[in-house]
């Protein structure tokens, strides 16, 4: 038996086919990566669409992060499929009543949108590099210009319009993609732990806090690596974003749990036995206590006291790491936790993760790290902190125009 390690021990009464876990840790990694995409895109949108100029230092990093993570979103799914070579069937011959069939469309649309927005955002840089370099990389940039070398003020204003509209389109696309992931679980009536109308919204808000937190960590780490000063205002802006959304995330999760307990439908006894037993540490302590309440209280304290400087940056970064951990635990507690409660409502299983193998913990960890490696590479090709990206150029243009119009100096 090649799958001997997948067999889950159980207590109580479970259906005979449940003893082999249907969805492994990879299916917990999938919504985690998708959530980071949506969250990172939120930051980019806050700058591009909602005019949060304080977030400028991370705006392009957010875009690149979103793109890198999005590219890796399908990988856990592909590794999990029994027939990955047939994966495209879901897009070529979709079964319209299936939530899962929509993934190909949502994902491809979003990847194209991200690539387009990144291209417009980096066009001046691409043109500059294409003209400056004579090496192989120069050829690559030449190819990327798509034959358009026009970086006149008029052209850049035109680009900016595209960026704005792509960012606007991206908001429902990114959040729709993640809401849909929540729907995939929430719409199943076979499991009481999943079957909640709030599931898509919970997924969405946890996605936002995880993506913003990721950017805090990436921004602080990149500044340290590049030995440049951290823009405290930017970190503060991100902290406020996390703080605002974390409140919603906590309230929504607690509401969903309260609903489940208060309704007390069949199987609730087993769920209570589960959350107060095997799930006590992963759910209440790790996901809620350490992962959500500690950052929330810490951020609240810093906002209340007006903490600034290095202490504030340290506090926000640690809070962000905790939130990243909490959201991973949330994905785990939903995906793995849901399967640990038997469909009979009368038994509990215990997932036995394997270390090695296609669906092992090592692969899961590598899949979480792979987008960061990709980001490291992409950030060299398209430095998110380079001068000359279109937004800063356009900002300068607008400034100059204002000066001209009002005669200000």
């Amino acid at each position, binding site marked *: *038996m*090649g*799958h001997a390690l997948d*067999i889950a021990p159980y207590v109580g*009464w*479970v*259906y*005979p*086919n*449940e*003893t*082999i876990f*249907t*969805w492994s840790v990879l299916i917990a990694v999938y919504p985690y990566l998708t959530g980071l995409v949506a969250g990172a895109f939120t930051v980019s949108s806050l700058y591009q669409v909602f005019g949060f100029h304080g977030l400028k230092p991370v705006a392009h990093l957010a875009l690149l992060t979103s793109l890198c993570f999005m590219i890796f979103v399908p990988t856990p*799914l592909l590794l*999990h*499929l*029994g*027939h*990955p070579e*047939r*994966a495209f*069937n*879901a897009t070529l*011959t*979709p*079964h319209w*009543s*299936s*939530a*899962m*069939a929509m*993934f190909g469309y949502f994902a491809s649309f979003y990847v194209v949108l991200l690539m387009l927005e990144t291209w417009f955002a980096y066009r001046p840089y691409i043109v500059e590099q294409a003209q400056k370099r004579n090496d192989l990389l120069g050829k690559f940039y030449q190819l990327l210009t798509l034959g358009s070398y026009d970086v006149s003020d008029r052209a850049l204003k035109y680009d900016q319009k595209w960026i704005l509209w792509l960012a606007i389109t991206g908001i429902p696309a990114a959040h729709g993609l993640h809401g849909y992931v929540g729907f*995939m679980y929430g719409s*199943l*009536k*076979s*499991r009481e732990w999943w079957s909640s109308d709030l599931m898509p919204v919970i997924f969405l808000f946890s996605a936002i806090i995880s993506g913003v937190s990721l950017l805090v960590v990436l921004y602080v780490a990149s500044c340290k690596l590049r030995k440049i000063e951290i823009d405290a205002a930017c970190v503060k802006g991100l902290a406020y974003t996390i703080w605002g959304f974390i409140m919603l995330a906590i309230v929504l999760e607690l509401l969903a749990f309260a609903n489940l307990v208060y309704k007390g439908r069949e199987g609730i006894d087993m769920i209570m036995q589960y959350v107060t037993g095997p799930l006590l540490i992963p759910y209440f302590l790790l996901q809620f206590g350490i992962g959500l309440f500690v950052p929330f209280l810490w951020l609240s304290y810093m906002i209340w006291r007006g903490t600034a400087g290095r202490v504030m940056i340290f506090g926000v970064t640690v809070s962000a790491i905790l939130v990243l951990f909490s959201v991973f635990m949330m994905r785990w507690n939903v995906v793995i936790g849901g*399967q640990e409660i038997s*469909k*009979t*409502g*009368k038994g509990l299983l215990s997932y036995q993760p394997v270390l090695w193998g296609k669906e092992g913990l090592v692969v899961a960890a590598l899949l979480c790290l792979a987008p960061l490696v990709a980001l490291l590479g992409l950030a060299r090709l398209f430095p998110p902190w380079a001068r000359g990206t279109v937004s800063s150029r356009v900002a300068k243009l607008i400034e100059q125009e204002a000066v001209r119009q009002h005669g200000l100096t």
Partner: protein
Amino acid sequence: MTEDSCPRPDARPSSTARRRFLQGLGHAAGCVVATAGTLGALRESAAQSGANARAESFPTMDYDWTKHQWAFGVDATKCIGCLRCVEACKAENGVTRDAHHFRTWVERYVYLEGETGARIDSQQDPVNIAASGSEEEFRFANRYQDAKVEKAFFVPKLCNQCTHPACVQVCPVGATYRTKDGVILIDDEYCIGCRYCVQACPYGARLFNEEQGVSDKCNWCYHRITKGMQPACVEVCPVNARVFGDRMDKESPISLFIRNNRVQVLKPETGNAPNVFYVGLDKEVR
């Protein structure tokens, strides 16, 4: 009842239909590009696929799935828990020979004196596997011989071939589908192995075939019933606890079973509308 004499037809109806459809498409597409004979060819291919759908012999040459509406009955009061059905099913359908893959199974409910809830187990329980000494043969261990049993009974389970199947709803590629005669089949040449259907089934009736990388489930021995035979589990049951037949035939065993008994279905609140009808269930059975 060997696999050789009765090859599994699961994939065939749809894959043949799809192949024919794709051939028709290819044919049609070629003609569109080519000549003025286009319209004629399109009409011809449309007529062909239409004819197939209307044919009296579908999905096989001598079987018309519009002329049957299969259903299954279980009389739990008769089941003796011998598990011949489970073994016959595995042999007939090539189900993985271990204690974790079942197209059908039998549950044992035992109420001991002084206890309010039932103790439930199935043939896959480690104690029962220890009693049989093998994961290929099944028996219920005599684990309650020293206890005071108040009430005890067996409940055979299998795929409910629901009228509104959650598994079919969630399949991203339509590899699993409901036939016109009321059986849910899986096209194992098209299934991508995502296991969403396994998650969606409220009854735990679906399993995953790791070797083939596709989902699997009971199909009431579709290869047998379309040849006028009974499902393997029904055929081997020594006490007629399992009843199978055509609801279009008012005098068939299943029609009589449903007419003459007050039948129940499992988990009606899911809205799945199962087509396995039970007699002799108990409050604890889900």
